[in-house]
């Protein structure tokens, strides 16, 4: 009896989610929405409830999306499985595999040495160095990989800075957040920087037949990364004044740890070369052969040369995340096909029309705020997956550029600087034990405001100079 009550209390959100979904199914369809549109909307709302409350492991939600699409007759089993797996999903998978291979190598130690060799012992310069390197790598591979590689560097710097680490407050926050924020802010830089970018490419192609290449994406968004790096440094150095200005002792310690490793091995060299070849192929030929296939070439090379081991992949990659992206894309396609996305977009536009947010730059601003709000209660990947079909249709209906709207949705979903749970990168640096939750809030709100401002400036200025596929401004 007691156990049953406990079970029900723990699972109450499952019941609530299904109940709400069932009620939506039973209601008469609102005008303009087909019955199957109503069904996919019911799935979407239930999925959002599950993604936010997490009453079950999140990949389960993705599985349920596929199951209910078939059970409710929205699409056939073949169509559903096809919508799950696409070139974009292969791309996400391949990027994660490549990142896992890189993190397995001991490149981080050489990287650390290279950073301090350039920056010298001044703390401001070291911080800028950490941000630049974090951002540079994270703009091409997943942020969690970058943080896993850079975190020990930061921890070594803090632990041997001089005073007891427990007596330091600002220096640990400064260094750890430099790594995390650098990585998170740069994840937008290229399609392989984050899975949500890949989802956006998939939506443009599958929902609107718009093709944006790897290089085009970088052309649109890399300038933001470049401007963002000094801003991150400035915000962090203003917020956390370091107790120690001269990090000579830390750098000595770092050198001695790296010295144990010896010189660069051939393996390190091949790791970097294969990665650069993959990026080169992404930039040059992925238009013809697809981003996913290109990623798989890199993965195959790593496996054949023995640099990567399959066991590393099965252990070190969160396969559940890939399911979540598959499920989100599948639901997005179902929402388009059944007209639910279009109907929701109309409904939202009508709602914001009195505020003047129903087109152009004001609408982009609204989309950014909406995305940030949603990303603060669920994972950024799921946010883009569920929200983008609606925001892209809003763009389509209002004559705003679909590509610009998609970019804003993808970028704003990364503005999760205020909590350790907002992104894997922040969660990982939080697990170092050097940060308090309050540290994220102290610097995070400034990061959010500045990033949003910068994004809007880009939309207002730089992007207008570009000709986006599909037109619209």
């Amino acid at each position: 009896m007691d156990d049953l009550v406990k079970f029900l209390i723990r699972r109450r959100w499952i019941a609530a989610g299904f109940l709400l979904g069932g009620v939506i199914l039973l209601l008469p369809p609102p005008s303009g929405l087909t019955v199957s549109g109503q069904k996919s909307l019911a799935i979407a709302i239930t999925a959002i409830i599950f993604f936010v409350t997490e009453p079950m492991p999140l990949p389960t939600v993705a599985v349920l999306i596929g199951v209910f699409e078939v059970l409710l007759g929205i699409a056939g089993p073949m169509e559903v499985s096809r919508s799950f797996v696409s070139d974009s999903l292969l791309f996400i998978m391949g990027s994660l595999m490549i990142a896992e291979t890189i993190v397995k190598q001991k490149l981080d130690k050489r990287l650390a040495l290279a950073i301090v060799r350039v920056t010298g012992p001044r703390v401001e310069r070291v911080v800028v160095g950490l941000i630049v390197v974090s951002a540079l790598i994270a703009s091409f591979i997943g942020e969690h990989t970058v943080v896993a590689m850079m975190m020990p560097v930061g921890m070594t710097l803090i632990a041997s800075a001089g005073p007891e680490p427990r007596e330091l407050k600002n220096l640990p926050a400064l260094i750890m957040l430099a790594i995390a924020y650098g990585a998170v802010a740069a994840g937008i830089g290229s399609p392989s920087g984050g899975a949500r970018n890949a989802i956006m490419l998939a939506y443009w192609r599958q929902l609107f037949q718009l093709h944006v290449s790897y290089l085009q994406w970088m052309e649109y968004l890399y300038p933001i990364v470049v401007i963002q790096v000094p801003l991150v440094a400035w915000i962090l150095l203003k917020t956390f004044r370091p107790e120690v200005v001269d990090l000579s002792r830390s750098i000595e310690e770092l050198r001695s740890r790296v010295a144990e490793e010896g010189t660069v091995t051939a393996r390190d060299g091949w790791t970097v070369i294969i990665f650069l070849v993959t990026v080169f192929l992404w930039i040059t030929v992925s238009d013809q052969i697809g981003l996913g296939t290109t990623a798989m070439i890199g993965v195959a090379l790593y496996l054949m040369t023995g640099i990567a081991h399959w066991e590393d992949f099965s252990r070190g990659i969160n396969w559940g995340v890939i399911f979540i992206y598959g499920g989100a894309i599948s639901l997005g396609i179902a929402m388009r096909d059944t007209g639910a996305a279009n109907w929701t977009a109309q409904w939202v536009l009508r709602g914001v029309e009195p505020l003047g947010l129903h087109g152009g730059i004001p609408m982009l601003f609204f989309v950014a705020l909406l995305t940030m709000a949603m990303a603060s209660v669920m994972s950024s990947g799921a946010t883009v997956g569920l929200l983008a079909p609606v925001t892209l249709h809003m763009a389509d209906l209002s004559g705003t550029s679909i590509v610009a709207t998609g970019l804003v949705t993808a970028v704003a979903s990364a503005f999760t600087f205020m909590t350790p749970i907002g992104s894997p990168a922040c969660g990982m640096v939080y697990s170092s034990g050097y940060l308090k939750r309050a540290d994220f809030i102290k610097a995070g709100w400034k990061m959010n405001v500045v990033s949003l401002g910068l994004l809007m400036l880009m939309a207002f200025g730089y992007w207008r100079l570009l000709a986006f596929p599909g037109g619209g401004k």
Partner: protein
Amino acid sequence: MKILMCTDGQPYAEEAIRFGGKFAHELDADVTVLYVRPMAPGGDSIYLTTARKKMGEWDLDIPGVEYLKRAKDILAGAGLVAFSPERDTGVRQTFRGSAEGGVELHLIGRHAERVRLKLREGESAEEILTEAGQGRYDLVLTGSRGHEGFASYFVGSTALRIAEFAPCSVLIAKNIRESHDFLMCTDGSKLAEKAELFGAQIAQALNARVTVLSVAAEPAGLKAAQEQVRRAEMILAQLGVQAKVKVRSGRPSEVIIDEAKDHDIVVMGASGSSAVRRFFLGSVPLKVIEYGACPVLLVREKPESKRRSTSRRAG
């Protein structure tokens, strides 16, 4: 005897471990020191494990391990651990572990008593209770900040939850003093007898003075209370513990809290096993823990020993 000591690296927790080390040494007890690292909810364990492995490559300890090492030094000071594991290069490796579940390190003491250092991740009270249940401990020792204004009420909630829900005896240590003057509370029940037996062991280990107290709710009950303390005195005398006796009347929780001012440790049975009754009436031991000025040893029967005895009966 198996003792679980909790630390969070704060001075009050380490004070409690120093105190626990004193009697654990005398009792040849097996000691586990547990540190619970708070984890961000929704933290992705696969990514965290990747980060951990990297930290291992850099020879960086999981945060919190330094608290366990300090606790080990404290216990070594009490004579519990014979050798320093630092010299053993293999030891550092055993601290590495997955992001989920406990990570542990074993040390063996002079009398073959074991000291284990353990690190778990999650919500502190929950993980301590899980460990207490899984490890079949006889006693959970946890420090408490004691009363320092408003904030301590919330800080103390972890200790209170442990006291309420632990499956074994609990020692909540706050305002630990140098002298060890025991105040044993009895109400003549079976559980109170258990508390006397358990308390006597620790009192002997600490070489402490003991006073037995019984509180009568009404003056008419004073006679029965007299009898109760006499019986307790006899039990203690059989164990070789000299005890003074005292009888008072009034509200038990208030009287005990008042008497506790002149004593250093309160020993009592965990009464009111029904959660419903506790909810409506409040529990005397929990009130004493919350508002009393000194450490409280709350004695409770381990559930598995009960199960064993019933199965024996059935067999």
